[in-house]
């Protein structure tokens, strides 16, 4: 049975409840690595599900504490995941296409920074797939770059490929947010506003490049501050609203 993207997205709820098994779960997790809005939704729904868990708190048997602590004392812990030096993206290929070679170098550095944020093997693999997709946008013959200041400080840079209907978004120096708040990226079109993912935590003030697909004519790129996990529609005034070149 072949599932469409829409069917997969509907699984966010069941997945957050750990109610998806086997091959279907594998397929959904594969999809999640490519679908930032889905990942954002799963995160919010998981936090919701945690409230369901906290509501059934029950005192554990008294002896459990001693058993667990004794067990821990004789159990070796996993070492922290180590970042592997990767080959983030073929800068040469991108360089052939983009006239502004310096920009590519900067972006390559950003992508390496992005890689540094991924700490498990699993994350690294998905990051590498993501970087392939990003490199494809950078290498697009019609790639254009725009930069704009955010109202609350910092700047955003967007690389657009109309042919691929994709953008790559990075930012530098955005104001740090309090706990429980995130920056959310939007594609803001005349017909409707679509969530395009949550900005990753900055490293040295810079957020790793993120890819947004489904760019339509007339879309602007926007960024708002939202509660952790993101929302499906903006709830605050954008700190960035960027028209894109046609």
């Amino acid at each position: 049975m072949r599932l469409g993207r829409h069917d997969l997205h509907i699984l966010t709820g069941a997945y957050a409840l750990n109610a998806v098994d086997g091959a279907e779960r594998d397929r959904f997790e594969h999809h999640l690595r490519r679908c930032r809005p889905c990942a954002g939704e799963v995160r919010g729904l998981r936090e919701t599900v945690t409230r369901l868990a906290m509501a059934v708190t029950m005192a554990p048997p008294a002896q459990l504490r001693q058993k667990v602590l004794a067990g821990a004392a004789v159990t070796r812990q996993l070492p922290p995941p180590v970042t592997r030096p990767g080959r983030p993206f073929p800068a040469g290929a991108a360089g052939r296409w983009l006239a502004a070679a310096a920009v590519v170098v900067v972006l390559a550095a950003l992508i390496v920074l992005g890689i540094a944020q991924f700490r498990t093997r699993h994350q690294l693999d998905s990051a590498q797939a993501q970087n392939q997709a990003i490199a494809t946008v950078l290498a697009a013959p019609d790639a254009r770059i725009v930069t704009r200041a955010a109202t609350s400080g910092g700047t955003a840079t967007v690389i657009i490929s109309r042919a691929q209907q994709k953008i790559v978004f990075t930012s530098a120096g955005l104001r740090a947010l309090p706990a429980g708040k995130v920056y959310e990226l939007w594609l803001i079109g005349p017909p409707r506003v679509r969530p395009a993912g949550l900005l990753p935590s900055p490293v040295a003030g810079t957020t790793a490049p993120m890819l947004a697909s489904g760019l339509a004519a007339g879309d602007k790129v926007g960024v708002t501050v939202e509660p952790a996990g993101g929302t499906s529609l903006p709830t605050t005034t954008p700190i960035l609203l960027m028209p894109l070149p046609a």
Partner: protein
Amino acid sequence: MCMSRGDARRVRPRPARAEGSSSQDLDGLLVRVARGDQAAFEAVYDRLAGPIYGLIRTVVRDPAQSEEVAQEVLLEVWRTASRFDASRGSATTWVMTIAHRRAIDRVRSVAAAAEREHKTARPLIALDEVAESVEASLDAERVRHCLGGLTELQRESITLAYYGGYSYPQVAGLLGTALGTIKTRIRDGLIRLRDCMGVS
């Protein structure tokens, strides 16, 4: 939105619990646990053993098996604390996800399935029981209120899946409802719960 619905007598203003800071404490504790800090692990135990055991009991039912699973989960937290990544969700959610998955592993095995033939997942009994406990009453009250705002099918699907530990195809079978409908109702219901509980 949920607050403006009927059933107002059950709505209590939610005291401003220091939720943000306490969940951050837990994040910090896990970081210390990852470095082998046993005192930090004891603190995590004291904070989360009750929720872990309660969730596992709700799903697994059998007290002896639940204790075993809870022990596995807590040791798993100790062992894999270095894999906790605060950028991907709260520490509480990380731990409770492990607990729920382990509970499900236990009940979805074939032998356990046969044992559970009575299959009356009646999770709300547990919810009523814990409402008496002071520390959990606020969470339970809130959850009960928000569950009350769902349609019956949404509520049954979610509670059977989560508290009952059933996969969504099993839920569809139990409720005699199409798979696609169950998937949609679970998602719609959880989104409504999320908004009602003000999860950020």
